[in-house]
């Protein structure tokens, strides 16, 4: 009877897709409490922290006392824009995060702060997204989207004039890519839960799906809907700003000119490379992952058996097809997990190096900040 479960994976996968697709329309990317283990939540807080520090530093350097009302209003604006229902061709609607727009108008460093505050208020006072998950939500939506979107926008628009249609294209692609990469990170955070945080008998304690389910289930619907919403909204507003409020786009531009074009400029390409890698990797890896599992069935099962807790051995009668299947997907995912963590590692080291150089080279005496 049990073996039937493994014979219809497409059906199970179909249910997953449907479920996450529905979810997409309701709560977008806000992770509630209970999906992530406390350890993951803590790590995500630590990942966000340097970006918060960098953002505050940047604000203090460039805007002085004006920063308090500016951040407040921008955070309030982000909050409100998240409530906009954007109609898509075909009659569906979706919500945008607005993080890509904030990055283009304010620059990614300041956008991080504005979006984070909007997310914190949502979590605390409106129950959208968990309180312990604030770190994860801020990392996915307030860090990943602004940086990826801004890098893409800059690369696509290059030095074209502010009215250039390339700016709009850059904004659309930036918004789309930003949210897609964010969805990927969210999926990885979900997907690692069953590996690291399960009970002795394998019962997942938090988000139950492995990477092989979480990544396609999050990425595919996001790429089709939520990312499109984000891209379209960002592009539309940039288009409008170009025609009637060019000053808003200009302020960030002037800011960039005064900024020394050094490591940051070179790193921009790295950022885009990372983004492309991150998006491309699951697509390319998912198929080889299972193929890899198939040719290695025997060794893998052997490997898997060694790591099985003793409690499971009692259930030896069940060591038929479903478990073998499970082991393959499990190890296949471990393999994927290694590659993902490698990418994540590169990403983190890159951030650290960048932060360090910024802190050291940007060590120009902080302006008399009256804050």
């Amino acid at each position, binding site marked *: *009877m*049990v073996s*039937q*479960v493994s014979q*219809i994976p497409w059906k199970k996968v179909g249910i997953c897709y449907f*479920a996450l697709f529905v*979810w997409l329309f309701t*709560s977008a990317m806000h992770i*509630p*409490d*209970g*999906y992530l283990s*406390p350890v993951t939540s803590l790590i995500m807080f630590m990942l966000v922290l340097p970006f918060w520090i960098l953002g505050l530093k940047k604000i203090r350097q460039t805007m002085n*006392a*004006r920063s*308090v*009302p500016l*951040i407040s*209003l*921008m*955070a*309030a*604006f982000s909050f*409100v*824009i998240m*409530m906009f*229902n*954007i*109609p898509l061709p075909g*009659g569906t*609607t979706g919500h945008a995060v607005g993080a890509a727009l904030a990055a283009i*108008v304010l620059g990614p460093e300041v956008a991080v702060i504005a979006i984070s505050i909007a997310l*914190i*208020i949502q979590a*605390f*006072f*409106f*129950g959208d997204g*968990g*309180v*312990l998950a604030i770190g994860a939500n801020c990392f996915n939506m307030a860090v990943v989207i602004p940086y990826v979107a801004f890098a893409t926008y800059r690369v696509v628009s290059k030095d074209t004039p502010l009215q250039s249609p390339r700016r709009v294209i850059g904004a659309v692609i930036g918004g789309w890519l930003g949210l897609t990469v964010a969805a990927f990170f969210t999926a990885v955070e979900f997907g690692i839960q069953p590996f690291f945080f399960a*009970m002795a008998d394998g*019962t*997942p*304690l938090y988000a*139950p*799906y492995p990477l092989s*389910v979480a990544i396609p289930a999050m990425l595919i619907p996001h790429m089709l809907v939520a990312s499109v919403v984000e891209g379209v*909204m960002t592009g*539309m*507003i940039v*288009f*409008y*700003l170009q025609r009637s409020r060019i000053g808003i786009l200009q302020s960030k531009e002037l800011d960039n000119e005064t900024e020394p074009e050094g490591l940051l400029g070179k790193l921009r390409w790295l950022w885009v490379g990372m983004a492309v890698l991150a998006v491309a990797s699951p697509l390319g890896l998912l198929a080889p992952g299972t193929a890899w599992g198939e040719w290695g069935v025997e060794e893998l099962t052997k490997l898997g058996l060694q790591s099985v807790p003793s409690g499971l051995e009692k*259930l030896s009668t*069940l060591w038929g097809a*479903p478990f073998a299947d*499970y082991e393959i997907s499990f190890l296949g995912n471990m393999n994927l997990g290694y590659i993902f963590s490698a990418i994540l590692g590169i990403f983190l080291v890159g951030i650290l190096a960048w932060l360090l150089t910024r802190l050291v080279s940007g060590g120009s005496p902080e302006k008399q900040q*009256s*804050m």
Partner: protein
Amino acid sequence: MPKQSHFIEKTLRGITQAMERSLFAETISLQPGFFQSLDPRLKIITTLVLLVGVSMAHNLWIIVAVYFLILVFALSSAVPADFFIRRVWLAVPLFTGIIALPALFLIPGRPLVHLPLGLVITEPGLRSVLFLLSRVATSISLVLLLILTTPWNTVLGALSVLKVPDMFILVLGMTFRYIYLLLHITNDMFLSRKSRVIAKMSGKQERHMLATIGATLLGKSLNMSSEVYLAMVSRGYRGTVVTLKPFKMQRRDWIWAVFFAIISVSVFYLGR
């Protein structure tokens, strides 16, 4: 004929709901009740500790016990029971339930129930779904109880105990205040536009209208930030932040603090 997406109505409904909810929370938080009478710092710390406790628990019953404890607190704090239960149990199964459903069949283990189409509910599958649902519901209830029984400016004031910098609290408070103003402005913009539209708009027109409203709102926000800055300066703002900290732990608060500490420790200990 293109399908109508009713995006204006949806956006307006969202905005109205957000305003209604916080008005409702404000009303309850001003009524006399058990949780309302406690020191806000104690409430925030207890909420956070219990959130971590629930998040770390490996025992389903402990999570369920915490949920019922919160329910008792809510009932003794003038929170309408049907609202408190409905708000959580309508939303959680709808979102988390749908996501978690396939896990019933996907996670391998001892089969419990055989359904048609060859679907088998497994024991670990059922347990993992229950873990997810109970954790999410309990966490949401905890935060909900805190916001329902504490006015938001009190929560902000109490955040300073958690060593949150005063500057950050000021920004949070201002953001909160301007969210309502911007929601109001947005509401007006949508309503005034909608009241002048008779024909069905095409998707392109709808998006164009949204972009206009979004960009106008962005411009207004930026303008307002410099106006607010000038207003602050003219009232003596020099870049330093002063927050009032009028809280004082009463004897009653200390007694409850001990009680909450015992509960928290037992949640951590028994939930291992």
